[in-house]
């Protein structure tokens, strides 16, 4: 059998941690090969090695049967290897075309040959139905579109081997199914794909084979057609995984959060929130469902205070907090797992310990007379690392930037849960997490609610919406269009509400 890529016995050490331990991965021509593993299992690391970002501590790489050394991404490009990173690497104030040609500029006597580039990009975009305007600014296009730009970047460089690191974590269900189509199309043309994802359904849907890593070790490769989702999950975690959330009946109490008549228009004058009113009660997990970009982000920003340009009122119990400072809101008992972990959730240049006190550094627990108490911080952090199973190399001194995407998310979750807030606002809390971690976080949400706290969950994933929440509000174009209970609706019904084709009582 002919392999286009073989990574043989790869080991990679980071200070304090062995990220890959004797891992072998073989990619066949024309296949979609899934790479599965828990957060921090070493998937991104392995792919970064293939792409030349890291050098392996030991092991060999063969491309089309020949042993090679990939010293840097340029080498990788020359070997026709392309990669879409877990977090995109686009320049926001450049246009699509400028981003695509970046680093591979064709010049004509020192001048950029932009016209030819744009022609080529447009042709590629048409061929794969990407529907992309080469002259649009990156900052103006949706995340799904940005991902297509990343794919175009690979195609523009004639990549034959494509690595997708968690491409679906940031996409809407619609975008996901379109991406799947694109990937199929690409393999039909003879390209080979390595796909990293935590969503077993996706693996099941598109890939041919699947290799599993656990804590840096290679567990095995299976034929996806002959393996069930449960089996793959077990291979990955090392135990049986519950896909159903276990929870008892909720005991609804007093109103914790009430939102009255929120209205917001954005910078270009578009109404993004229209008269939004609702309550979250103690002992309740209320979920805001909807397709991305229908006002969920703005709603949360208004409640948490990240954006103050809105009208309407927000109350915690009886107290109006509409225009209180964020600090003030935090102290009245709001926890917030933000949508964008890199933008809001973490200071990447701080280490884990420093990130764990982001909202409480001023607390007497962590400071004396204005001086940080590093011992207390360290103790606190190590406690959270243990409780939330954050997998890292160097304890509280690990830089947040070096943590795996899923572990970054776990750290934020840990920090917010630990503050034990009366109201937990969780925006896509399980984005990028492995099934085991998702299970854990769902349990925690349920535990909070059982302790008579209120949970406001924003999720794009219907599975999650239906299995975790006690009540569901559907948002469409800045309005609440349905108020339903999970037992009363099907995925299909929800889909109709979310796409605006159906309205219910709110």
């Amino acid at each position, binding site marked *: 059998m002919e392999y286009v890529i073989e990574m043989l016995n790869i080991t990679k050490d980071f200070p304090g941690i062995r990220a890959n331990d004797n891992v072998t991965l073989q990619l066949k021509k024309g296949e979609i090969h899934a790479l599965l593993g828990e957060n921090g299992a070493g998937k991104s690391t392995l792919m970064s090695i293939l792409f030349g970002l890291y050098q392996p501590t030991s092991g060999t790489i063969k491309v089309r049967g020949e042993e090679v050394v990939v010293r840097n991404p340029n080498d990788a490009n020359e070997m026709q290897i392309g990669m879409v990173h877990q977090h995109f690497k686009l320049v926001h104030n450049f246009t699509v075309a400028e981003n695509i040609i970046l680093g591979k500029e064709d010049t004509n006597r020192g001048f950029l040959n932009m016209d030819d580039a744009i022609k080529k990009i447009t042709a590629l975009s048409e061929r794969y139905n990407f529907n992309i305007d080469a002259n649009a600014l990156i900052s103006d296009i949706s995340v799904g579109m940005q991902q297509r730009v990343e794919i175009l970047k690979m195609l523009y460089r004639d990549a034959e081997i494509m690595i997708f690191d968690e491409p679906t974590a940031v996409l809407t269900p619609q975008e996901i199914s379109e991406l799947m189509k694109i990937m199929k199309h690409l393999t039909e043309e003879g390209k080979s794909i390595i796909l990293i994802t935590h969503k077993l359904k996706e693996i099941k849907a598109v890939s041919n084979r699947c290799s599993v890593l656990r804590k840096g070790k290679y567990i095995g490769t299976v034929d996806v057609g002959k393996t069930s989702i449960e089996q793959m999950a077990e291979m990955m975690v090392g135990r049986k995984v519950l896909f159903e959330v276990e929870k008892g009946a909720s005991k609804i109490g007093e109103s914790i959060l009430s939102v009255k008549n929120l209205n917001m228009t954005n910078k270009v004058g578009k109404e993004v929130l229209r008269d939004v009113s609702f309550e979250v009660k103690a002992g309740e997990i209320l979920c805001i469902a909807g397709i991305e970009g229908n006002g969920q982000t703005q709603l949360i920003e208004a409640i948490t205070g*990240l954006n103050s340009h809105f009208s309407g009122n927000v109350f915690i119990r009886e107290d109006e907090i509409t225009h209180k*400072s964020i600090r003030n809101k935090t102290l009245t008992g709001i926890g917030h797992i933000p949508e964008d972990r890199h933008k*809001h959730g973490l*200071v990447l240049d*701080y280490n884990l310990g420093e990130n764990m006190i*982001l*909202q409480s550094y001023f607390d007497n627990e962590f400071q004396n007379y204005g001086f*940080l108490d590093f011992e207390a911080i360290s103790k606190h952090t190590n406690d959270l690392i243990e409780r939330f199973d954050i997998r890292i190399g160097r304890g509280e001194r690990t830089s947040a930037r*070096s943590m795996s995407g899923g572990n970054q998310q776990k750290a934020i979750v840990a920090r917010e849960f630990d503050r034990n807030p009366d109201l937990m606002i969780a925006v896509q809390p399980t984005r990028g997490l492995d099934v085991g971690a998702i299970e854990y976080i769902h349990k925690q949400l349920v535990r909070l609610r059982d302790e008579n706290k209120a949970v406001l969950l924003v999720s794009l994933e219907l599975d999650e919406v239906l299995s975790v929440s006690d009540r569901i509000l559907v948002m469409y174009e800045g309005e609440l269009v349905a108020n339903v209970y999970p037992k009363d609706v099907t995925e299909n019904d929800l889909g109709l509400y979310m796409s605006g084709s159906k309205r219910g009582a709110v």
Partner: protein
Amino acid sequence: MNKLFKKIIGFPQSESGESFLSSFSAILFGVAFGFILMLIFNPSEAFEGIGIILTGGFEAGRSSLGTVLVNSAPIIITGLSVGFAFKTGLFNIGATGQLTVGAFAAIFVGVNWTFLPGNLHWIVAVLAAILAGAIWGIIPGLLKAFLNVHEVVATIMLNYIAMYLVVLGVKETVFNSLRSESLSVHPNAAIPTFGLDKIFPDSSITGGLILAFIAVIIIYIILKKTTFGYQLKAVGFNRYAAQYAGINEKMNIVYSMAIAGALSGLAGAVVFLTQSGIHITTTYILLPQGFDGIAVALLGLSTPIGVLFAGIFFGYIKVGGFFLQRLAFEKEIISVIIASIIYFSALSAIFKKYVRKVFATKKNSDGGDE
């Protein structure tokens, strides 16, 4: 034993080791570049020349070391000012303006407030400089925080405003009309030497160096150990996360600029509160110590300790350049050589990347899963 060995082996890969190595390679590069220039312009004396630059600080023994330190003290402090602001996400190009107003305040008090007895005189003069510099820093801070005026633009403009205002102020209040420069400060207003003159005889050393050390320690503590520094840095690293954490970004910008300004103001006092016969002249030039601070901060990678060494290095190289005049080099070429060494050295941030590459087989602490 084993531990120590590991430490030494691991040094290039540790955070501070990496910084040290990158700064060091930047310096080597700068010196190599200076050497090439010498080879071009005066090949026969190039070797001797580079020797003089590298040993210049010791050329005349302790007195020239004293001169090194005299020149280092103010740029250490302006380097701190720029570096501190940078750590908190602000680019303080205004060090020279803040230094100028600080210098004026110091001289004003130093000349006029002769009713202050003994040590009180210089202390008040230094405090006045700090205050004036702080005010000059707060202005762009407020503009940035509340009107969203970019601090680079604001501080550049304030540099010129400071320059003109201070020349005017000097003329109106502390003017030596015959020499067209500021009056000399009262001896009580000169920063005492704290015994440094015994260690470095025959140099115009003042206690400015001690003040620079104190400033380094204070800034180090603020940035590393306090909640105040924690929140300042958080804003600098990621203002959105800081906002999410409930940190008042606007006030932080103002505080940060106030401290940066206060430092530069202090540098002004250190330059002019001396009896070495230096004065503010009425020519309209921006004082160089402020701009040197930018280079110092870059070489020192904005950390207080790094800035301390970078400032001493620059002072050292300047004195080396002065002694290079021994040889047949044209003064212009000496200036070019010294400037090249200084500014190439300031590129140490670039070298950090390469240092990391070189040691990359063993380690990759940053830039991982991003």
